[in-house]
């Protein structure tokens, strides 16, 4: 792959993306339009995250890529290989050893540090999209901080179901200003967004948007006083490492209703195993 620049993108494109990232960091939670490029993987496969990662990577970095919390899911493998090939950077599956982590749908269980960047792949960056399909309208709503529609939606959930019926991509308010889609992470992960020492960057390639959370940003999951936000997970412990407070995947083991629960964060699970926790 010597025909391509370091980390695939040309320097002009990286500069354009870095400018968008700086703007995004300056206005936490605000969606910055950027001239997303066609990447050699399809839209929907993480092209936004890949472009952000390509723009922040340096040759000294150590990259970790996860999908559904796991390093060995096919798309995580594919994206990791892409950067091994185009940037020749070191890679790792260890959360603690990584300087840049690209993720789809999870935040690692292991707390992140100040020397780390977490890059999220985002399908639909607009938290108001399913309430109002028009971009021209939603941009105006954000500008006017007009979030009544979102509160009405959450209220209607409670009126209809007795609970807020959003299990993932649960909307948050950032630094008291912008309502933001945290990408389709389970709401279990929402508390980790707030006051996080790491830089959190969000890339939506097809929708051409970048947004960010600078370190230690206040992030609040939307709720009501009498219906407080609840970070839920399956009420079980991991069958492998015994962890009672990590997010779990449900594995169907037979066709007679048998199932087991395992940590979705494979590095977290393995690390506990090695330390003999189980």
């Amino acid at each position, binding site marked *: 792959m010597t025909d391509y620049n370091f980390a695939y993108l040309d320097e002009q494109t990286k500069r354009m993306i870095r400018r968008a990232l700086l703007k995004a960091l300056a206005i936490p939670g605000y969606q910055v339009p950027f001239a997303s490029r066609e990447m050699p993987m*399809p839209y929907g496969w993480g092209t936004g995250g890949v472009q952000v990662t390509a723009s922040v990577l340096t040759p000294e970095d150590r990259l970790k890529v996860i999908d559904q919390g796991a390093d060995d899911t096919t798309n995580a493998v594919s994206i990791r290989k892409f950067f091994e090939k185009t940037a020749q950077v070191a890679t790792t599956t260890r959360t603690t050893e990584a300087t840049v982590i690209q993720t789809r749908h999870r935040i690692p269980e292991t707390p992140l540090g100040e020397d780390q960047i977490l890059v999220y792949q985002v399908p639909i960056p607009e938290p108001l999209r399913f309430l109002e399909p028009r971009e021209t309208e939603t941009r105006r709503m954000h500008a006017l901080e007009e979030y009544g529609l979102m509160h009405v939606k959450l209220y209607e959930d409670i009126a209809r179901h007795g609970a807020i019926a959003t299990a993932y991509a649960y909307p948050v308010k950032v630094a008291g200003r912008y309502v933001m889609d945290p990408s389709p992470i389970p709401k279990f992960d929402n508390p980790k967004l707030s006051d996080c020492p790491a830089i959190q960057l969000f890339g939506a390639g097809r929708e051409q948007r970048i947004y960010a959370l600078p370190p230690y940003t206040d992030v609040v999951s939307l709720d009501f006083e009498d219906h407080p936000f609840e970070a839920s997970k399956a009420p079980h412990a991991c069958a492998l490492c015994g962890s009672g407070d990590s*997010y779990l*995947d449900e594995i169907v083991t037979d066709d007679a209703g048998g199932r087991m629960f395992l940590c979705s964060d494979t590095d977290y699970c393995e690390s506990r195993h090695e330390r003999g926790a189980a």
Partner: protein
Amino acid sequence: MYVATKGGERAIDNAHAWLAEERRGDTDIPELGVAQIREQLALSVNRVMAEGSLYDRDLAALAIKQSRGDLIEAAFLIRAYRTTLPRFGSSLPVDTGTMACDRRISATFKDLPGGQVLGPTFDYTHRLIDFALAAEGGVPDAPVAAPDPAPKPRVADVIGREGMIEDNPRDDTTPPDLTRAPLEFPANRALRLQALTRSDEGFTLGMAYSTQRGYGRTHPFVGELRIGRVAVGMEVPELGFAIEIGEVELTECETVNQFKGSKTEPAQFTRGYGLVFGQSERKAISMSLVDRALRWAELGEDNVGAPAQDTEFVLSHGDNIQATGFLEHIKLPHYVDFQSELELVRKLRREAGVVDTREAAE
């Protein structure tokens, strides 16, 4: 029992190897050459060039071979390649009035300067399977006439001389570039046309067809459809003048639409415009209808709420590379999201008093 989450890397490698074998097919059958695709599947090549936004017949043919004939996949290969190419500069606007036409027809005038030239068209073929084609063999030469040197002025310009059609003044402002800046609304006509020319042919056709059937009715005639080669010129700073750097084949369609006038505009004919790489008639005509439908606001027409009148709807959903990516991504793992939904649905069912059959059995 532990699930097989390990081994993703080997699975991917093996899947790719199998794919390569499937692409080749039965090795007793001779392999398809890129030149064969370029010459004999030229309309596929044209579509891939148009939707891939890159004029290179050989590359498009190679992409078709690599994608096993999946034209959206081929256009995607072209786009992904295109985005890595350095931008040396911009060409001058092409002058389609000087096009060397293979085909030039007008539905509005029986005869016109330069004449009607039917060209290589399916239009009047009877759609009967030609079993003779199954046997390979030579094709008799088509009759040849000397090229007609008469100029072929654009029909809209002919009508324009009478003031019967809306004026289309020359505009030298640099148009926005869809491939270098994010698509933002409102989008001006230049940007809309850019998006439409690389939009999915099927989507554009469907949108155009809907306007004909009454969803935002326009009443278009093909003022002119012309297909042929035009020279591409470029100003080279070191030289200080423009030189010709090559030529491209284009299909241009200008529709003429009846227009009774509005509060702001007098009664006159209005225009819809389509321009596409290669011989791509269906696409060019579709594009010109959709272009015209999207112009309702500037012409002071009513928005009747038709999909083809909605710029944001049309431009946000016409790109098949974006559409197919997002559509197909739902086959990627979503264990985590599904799990959270599962817990939520269980919780809601518990609260509604539904007894889980499995838990009850335990």
